[in-house]
């Protein structure tokens, strides 16, 4: 017998899980909330890591930032795995169309040679810097505390890998695979890139994951993305490189979306206590100064004479944003 169960109206015994209800009350909770809140174990660990005997498996003591509740962090995008992949799938579909369009119309062949060359020089070595962003966010996910902040870090890590791969694809659109080796050679040895390479390698050895978050996601990306994917993009377009702009649309959209999470995380930590605020201010001051010096040669390569003014604008906007996040001094 086929029974129609839809006709039954039954009263649920509860509306969500108890650990969610303790935070939000017993009412229906979103998938983001049920899939995030208290998801990480925080007590009764069995063994200390052989690779870090001074800490528990998950240990709030791996950063100097102190939070009364690590679930005060929220991802404004409310990404859990499903919404994250669906959002990215849509973006990758758009990117795919852009690559198809550029290929079908032969737009690459129409690029002025100097524009194509400059694009290769600026964009391709960045794939290594993006890989650094991937490593660092992987570390934030691994050593961070609380699913609310570590979950988006893993999304961020994979996004950086995706962007490194899009940059690789741009290289393969513009030229042949040998350019990848040339770009790596530049990354390793050209003066333009050494400041950035030093910066990112220095972040690899940071032991405080929140400081790493500041150095990578707030500061470095906060200068690189406006420089490369906004200012440089506009400059290329002015010089007839609009096709390249189509191929970097993903990066711009990604930055505009993901910066909301980066900012929200910083803002929440800063607002927690004067001690956190002072800590963050110290980190930002230190890393901002280093990052500014490190991106200068890249700005000059990318923008020539306009570099100084463009970088000033970017730095001003960056500092203005710091004020909004409560980090003003």
């Amino acid at each position: 017998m086929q029974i129609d169960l839809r006709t039954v109206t039954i009263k649920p015994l509860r509306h969500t899980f108890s650990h969610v209800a303790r935070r939000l009350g017993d009412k229906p909770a979103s998938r983001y909330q049920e899939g995030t809140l208290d998801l990480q174990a925080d007590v009764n660990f069995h063994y200390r890591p052989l690779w870090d005997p001074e800490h528990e498996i998950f240990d709030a003591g791996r950063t100097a930032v102190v939070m009364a509740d690590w679930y005060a962090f929220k991802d404004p995008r409310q990404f859990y795995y499903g919404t994250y992949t669906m959002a990215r799938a849509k973006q990758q579909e758009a990117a795919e169309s852009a690559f198809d369009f550029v290929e079908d119309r032969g737009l690459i062949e129409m690029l002025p040679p100097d524009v194509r060359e400059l694009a290769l020089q600026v964009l391709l070595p960045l794939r290594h810097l993006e890989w650094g962003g991937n490593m660092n966010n992987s570390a934030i996910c691994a050593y961070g505390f609380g699913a609310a902040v570590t979950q988006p870090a893993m999304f961020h890590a994979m996004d950086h890998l995706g962007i490194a791969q899009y940059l690789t694809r741009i290289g393969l659109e513009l030229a042949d695979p040998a350019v990848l080796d040339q770009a790596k050679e530049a990354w390793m040895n050209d003066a333009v890139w050494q400041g950035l390479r030093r910066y990112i390698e220095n972040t690899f050895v940071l032991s405080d994951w929140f400081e790493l978050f500041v150095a990578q996601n707030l500061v470095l990306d906060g200068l690189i993305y406006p420089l490369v994917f906004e200012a440089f993009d506009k400059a290329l377009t002015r010089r007839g490189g609009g096709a390249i702009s189509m191929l970097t649309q993903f990066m711009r959209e990604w930055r505009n979306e993901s910066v909301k999470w980066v900012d929200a995380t910083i803002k929440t930590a800063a607002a927690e206590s004067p001690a956190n605020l002072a800590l963050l201010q110290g980190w930002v001051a230190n890393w901002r100064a280093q990052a500014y010096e490190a991106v200068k040669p890249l700005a000059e390569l990318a923008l020539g004479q306009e570099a100084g003014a463009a970088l000033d604008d970017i730095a001003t906007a960056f500092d203005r944003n710091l004020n909004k996040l409560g980090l003003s001094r």
Partner: protein
Amino acid sequence: MSVHAFKPYPARVMDGQDKFHGNQVLYVGWVDHLMFCAPLAFALAPDFPFGDLIKNVLPGAYSYHPDFAQIDWSAVQWYKSGVPFTPRLEESLVQNGLGHKDLITFVSPGLTGIKGTCS
């Protein structure tokens, strides 16, 4: 053998006797009575008289079993970690040589559980 760790890895003993508020742990197994799925654990004072174990502790744990009332305690054979041992009922656990996390098992002769299946 010992661990290969990235840094010195001192043992952090979780179950030292000092953590049991003056008690020590004693494990007791009743042989051929697997209705009690595993040996039982008790936290008892070191000066707890062995006889009180039989009189006051084990009945609470085992009396559900129809064999329990049939036990002839004078005929029971005791083992400490598998080695035969004869407890002195009036003496304490420690005086009987039982330390923290020691295991004793006992055989009740003639009793082999539900339908003789060691249940």
